């Protein structure tokens, strides 16, 4: 590993994708860069990456990162089923799903909930801008009640808090972040890729074209000013485990079941313990009541999480590679089966 290559001997450019076609300054492009950085830093094998998405500006982004991964841009709101199916066929692949707040919190709400309930092994990033970008700026289900659109129109309905919903549904990895926080997002994505199960990152990602008014809680200005980190999150992969020792003092290390650690360094007196569901609930409640701030970081982490492929006790070899010798019973067993109907 040199300065410019990672543990897999690859350079950052090996994780690049096509040139983005999103509006200049769009938060989604920041997340694209963060995904690239995370995959590079963790030395992910690009050919083993599956990139899934629904429909929306956000859902276009899998074309813009890890070009040597396999992308599948499905239909609006239904990416979780595609991701789950692909994961069943080949459980060795790393699945990174990208969705929007419209794609997830409205049309895709059902699939989103059920993927969490089943615990599909995937990273699920909601690029949350509070609007439907691609259809030109309608309010989404994550817009705040009373939020104002460019033309002055107000949103009449309360927002859905995707992290609170995830906690309710037993999701084992729940994070909230801001696209503008490169360091936090990159770390969270790395930890999420190392998680066994569904890892949600609800990342506020401003739409500069339709929802970036000065006082919008999904706009850059407001977020830069009012984003409060719950802690400084760090991720230490298995191959760097010795680094954990060096962290002293206020840092808490949380080992992950497949190796590697999450490290958490408190930034103020309110030390958030993400392994405690009650604490997670409190943080989300605080976030909801405190309209002046948004709290970002790792909200909840369940070390016991077990992904769907383990629940189903899937064979070690991926199903996609199995041939007739493995999949057909013997002629004698077949005869017995047929006899049972005679």
């Amino acid at each position, binding site marked *: 590993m040199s300065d410019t290559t990672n543990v897999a001997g690859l350079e950052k450019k090996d994780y690049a994708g096509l040139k983005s076609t999103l509006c200049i300054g769009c938060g989604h492009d920041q997340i694209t860069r963060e995904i690239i950085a995370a995959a590079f830093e963790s030395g992910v094998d690009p*050919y083993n990456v599956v990139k899934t998405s629904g429909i929306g500006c956000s859902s276009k982004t899998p074309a813009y990162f890890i070009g040597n991964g396999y992308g599948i841009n499905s239909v609006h709101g239904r990416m979780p*089923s595609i991701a789950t199916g692909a994961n069943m066929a080949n459980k060795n692949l790393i699945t990174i799903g990208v969705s929007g707040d419209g794609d997830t919190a409205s049309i895709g709400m059902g699939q989103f909930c059920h993927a969490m309930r089943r615990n599909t092994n995937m990273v699920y990033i909601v690029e949350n801008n509070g609007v439907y970008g691609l259809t030109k700026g309608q309010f989404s289900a994550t817009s705040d009640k009373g939020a104002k659109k460019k033309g002055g129109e107000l949103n009449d309905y309360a927002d859905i808090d995707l992290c609170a919903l995830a906690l309710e549904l037993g999701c084992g990895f729940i994070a909230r972040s801001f696209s503008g926080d490169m360091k936090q997002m990159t770390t969270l994505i790395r930890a999420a890729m190392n998680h066994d199960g569904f890892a949600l990152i609800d990342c506020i990602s401003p739409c500069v074209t339709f929802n970036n008014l000065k006082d919008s809680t999904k706009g850059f200005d407001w977020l830069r000013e009012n984003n409060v980190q719950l802690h400084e999150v760090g991720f230490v992969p298995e191959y760097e485990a010795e680094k954990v020792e060096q962290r002293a003092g206020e840092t808490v290390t949380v080992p992950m079941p497949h190796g590697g650690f999450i490290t958490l360094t408190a930034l103020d007196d309110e030390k958030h313990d993400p392994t405690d569901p009650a604490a997670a609930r409190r943080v989300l409640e605080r976030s909801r009541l405190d309209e002046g701030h948004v709290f970002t970081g790792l909200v909840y982490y369940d070390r016991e999480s077990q992904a769907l492929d383990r629940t189903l006790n899937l064979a070690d070899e991926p199903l996609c590679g199995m041939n007739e010798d493995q999949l057909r019973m013997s002629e004698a067993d077949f005869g017995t089966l047929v006899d049972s109907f005679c």
Partner: protein
Amino acid sequence: MRPTAGAKSLRASRLRLPRVPINDFTINVATVNGSGSASSNTIVAKTIFRMGVPITPKNLFPSNIAGLPTWFLMRVSEKGYQCRSGRHDVTVAMNAATAVDDIADLAPGGVLFIDESIPAAKSIERTDIAVHLVPFAKIAKEYAPDVRLRKLLANMVYVGVLTEMLGFDHDTVMSVVAEQFSGKEKVVKLNQDVVNAGIAHAREHCDASSVEFKIEARNLTQGKMFIEGNTAAAIGCLMGGCTFCGWYPITPSSSLCEDFISLAKKHRIDAGTGKQNFAAVQAEDELASLGLVLGAGWAGARSMTATAGPGISLMAEFAGFGYYAEIPGVVFDVQRVGPSTGMPTRTQQGDLSLCVNLSHGDTGHIVLIPAGPEELYEISAQAFDIAEKYQTPVFVLTDLDMGMNNWMSDRFEYPKGGFDRGKVLTAEQLKKVEDYGRYKDEDGDGIPYRTLPGTHHPKAPYFTRGSGHDEYAGYTEKSPAYIKVIDRIARKIAGSVVDLPKPVIGGDESAEIGIIHYGSTMYAVEEARDILAENGVKTRDMRVRSVPLHDEVVEFVNSCNVVYVAEQNRDGQLADLIRLKTPGSAGKIKKALYYAGMPMAAAPVVDAIMADVKEPAHV
């Protein structure tokens, strides 16, 4: 809805084959659902089957868990007819709520066994039937003080009565009872005792000479299977190498997935690790089911789902995605009566046009239409080869009558040859490919080459999308690039015909009247053709087994003076497809339809043709 003998709402044909009382009649058992009649019904059916006499049972059940009327029709036919006969010769009336109708529906010369406590039993006016009042409940009571158990046992009393009156072999009945409750010694003994009590009662109180219908042992079922269509399809999936099932419960398809899963739990466990060589996920709805199937198919697993019409409607968006992004998957549609929720426990063939053109834009899916368990088994397995070879969702059309009833079938054969996994490029093969494009037509057959996620070669990764794409899978809004791909897909699907099951042609080659049919309608046509022949009307027939249609269909139409398309839907969906394919002959294509929801009988086909024979059709 009740099983009116001869479906009064339609022109019921009075043309029948001559009736023979030995091994040629229909038994109707009228009960209440949830009363446990399934065991006794199965025992009677299996006993007759084991006596070597062909029998086809049809379970007419309500969309309800308990308390509504249910009928179990068992057609005994030495000639092997398996469609609904349309007449009831022997009726066992156990349900007070339907007794009046059940009595009215008995054919002249029929025999009635009715529970003596049913009010209608006291005022039977018909003199053309033999009536036997039987204290079913009372006899059962002696064996079970418990009310629930008594209800179950009352059904076993009827097994005894029929054994005596219709001449079942005693040893066979006893062994089938033992098999039905195998593993539970006490239950076996109790049920056998009650059957014997029924026999004793009948011997003492019922006049056997009043019953001309008898079962005589034959050896016509030896080596044959007796199996539900859904189970046959599930075995096909298993042997066809399906490793993924994503599904959502709906009548009449649920048992297809449930059977697949239970078979896989037995036959797909890795011997070394005890782990599963398959995955099954019960989805949140059918759109998700198809998403799961396509996700798995895209990543290289053979995958399937099964549903009925309402589920197919929900799947529409993903069906178009699978078609355009060229992803394999197998979708079973076990049809029931539509539109909307329709009659969920009644049968129809109303989804053909829906499946052919599912989703918006130009589509045109491959649809396979097996008939009979043997074909359900074989074609279900073959569907995975076709889906992977043509990289597209494949629909397998069956129906409630096929899927949920037991049918007599030849033994299934162990598959010959391996899987056809289609054009999949490995990293090794890619080294030799100069210019790889996921959607390029390298071979001129419209079938592109695909790579699977995880393939380690810089040329392998591509981006799959339902939005406009060029031959290299790149996003496009350019007209020529779009046209190139969409036209190639049309060619690919049209070309698939060479691998699809061919139509099966039968009957009298010199006949000028042709009948085209598909799926379970086959059984009705089989008997209808014999009835017509008896009445001097020669016919030939063609059973279509797939869409896109083969050229043989055109040739068949051309070679007949008039063609009746027999199917179970209101609008004649196959007839319309055939008319589109044979525009010049559209005028000679007529419709012989039945869509009232009962398993189809011969009558609608006979009637449609005889009406024209009497007043010759101008063709």
